[in-house]
């Protein structure tokens, strides 16, 4: 046994839950959603939930993952993936339900469903991709767009009077009682990628333990719509996007505490007894 006894062991490669056969062209060069895709695949492999996971995918670039993951999936109406995931979870409580959507779907048209799911504390997981604009439809202004950002619908830059202030969905989620886990991560450096993978894994774990609703907001770069090269878009996330949307874990509880006040049963107009 000498030098020839060295063998090659694969340490990084394509996760088992990721399939590439149906996608001849995937995401744009430098798109961070591919990294989220890899992280999701690795988490599904680690937790071994490929057979019982159900993905509810929204309209937009996030819907491409319909054929990119080996798990079962539903392609939902625009913004309704949270509601569909909650419904699937009620019908199949043993399934691991998660939904993926961008800021155009979960932040704009579907924000009401997200708030309702937080209120009902449905044990599902939301992966919210925040790329500061509408990606697939051509770079329109989104609720999460940065102030002053030039988009196709705000050519002079986003101003407060017409488009308001950016939406911080993770902070909203952290204030709701029904939320078990809310965090904001990014994938623009290797260290942040590992943190993002850990956050997704924790969110799935909260669902498997039946604690409550979990949401992971991931800051993603969109190089074509920002008009930047992949590496410049990476620096944009570091310099500008994290300044507006600070990273961190906003809520992480193992049990949602709630109490009923018995005196409240005696008030109200309905007469009892």
């Amino acid at each position, binding site marked *: *046994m000498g030098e020839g*006894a*060295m*063998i*090659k*062991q*694969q*340490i*990084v*490669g*394509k996760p088992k839950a*990721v399939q*590439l056969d149906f996608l001849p062209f*995937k*995401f*744009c*060069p*430098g*798109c*961070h959603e*591919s*990294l989220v895709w*890899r992280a999701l695949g690795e988490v599904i492999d680690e937790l071994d939930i490929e057979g019982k996971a159900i993905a509810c995918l929204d309209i937009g670039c996030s819907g491409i993952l319909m054929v990119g993951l080996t798990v079962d999936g539903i392609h939902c109406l625009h913004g309704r993936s949270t509601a569909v995931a909650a419904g699937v979870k009620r019908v199949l409580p043993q399934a691991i339900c998660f939904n993926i959507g961008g800021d155009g779907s979960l932040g704009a048209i579907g924000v009401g469903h997200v708030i309702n799911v937080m209120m009902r504390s449905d044990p599902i997981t939301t992966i919210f991709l925040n790329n500061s604009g509408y990606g697939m439809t051509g770079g329109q202004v989104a609720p999460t767009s940065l102030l002053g950002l030039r988009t196709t619908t705000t050519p002079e830059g986003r101003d407060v009077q017409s488009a308001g202030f950016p939406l911080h969905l993770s902070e909203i989620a952290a204030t709701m009682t029904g939320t078990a886990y809310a965090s904001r991560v990014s994938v623009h*450096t*290797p260290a942040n*990628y*590992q943190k993002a993978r850990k956050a997704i894994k924790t969110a799935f774990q909260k669902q498997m333990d039946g604690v409550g609703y979990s949401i992971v907001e991931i800051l993603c770069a969109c190089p074509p719509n920002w008009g930047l*090269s*992949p*590496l410049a878009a*990476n620096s944009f996330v570091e310099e500008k996007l994290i300044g507006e949307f600070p990273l961190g874990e906003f809520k992480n509880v193992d049990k949602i505490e709630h109490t009923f006040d018995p005196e409240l049963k005696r008030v109200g107009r309905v007469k009892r007894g």
Partner: protein
Amino acid sequence: MAKGEIVIDEMLCQSCGFCVEFCNQECITIPENRLGPKGFPVAVFSVPDKCSACGICGWMCPDFAIQVFKYVKSEANINQGG
């Protein structure tokens, strides 16, 4: 002495440059005078001797184009498996 090696799938590489940016040992380059089968300039494992098999290029590749292999002794591998 290299501790491992990487394999780049030219059919998947879209030339984003993340592997070049994040490789600590500067093992990967993107030559501009060569195009891959899809029309993108493709990343090349140009300095194999310095590879430390950290796996960062593999994690950060958005296109699943990089596989990272680590050299391990076969006895150690048997012990791990058993």
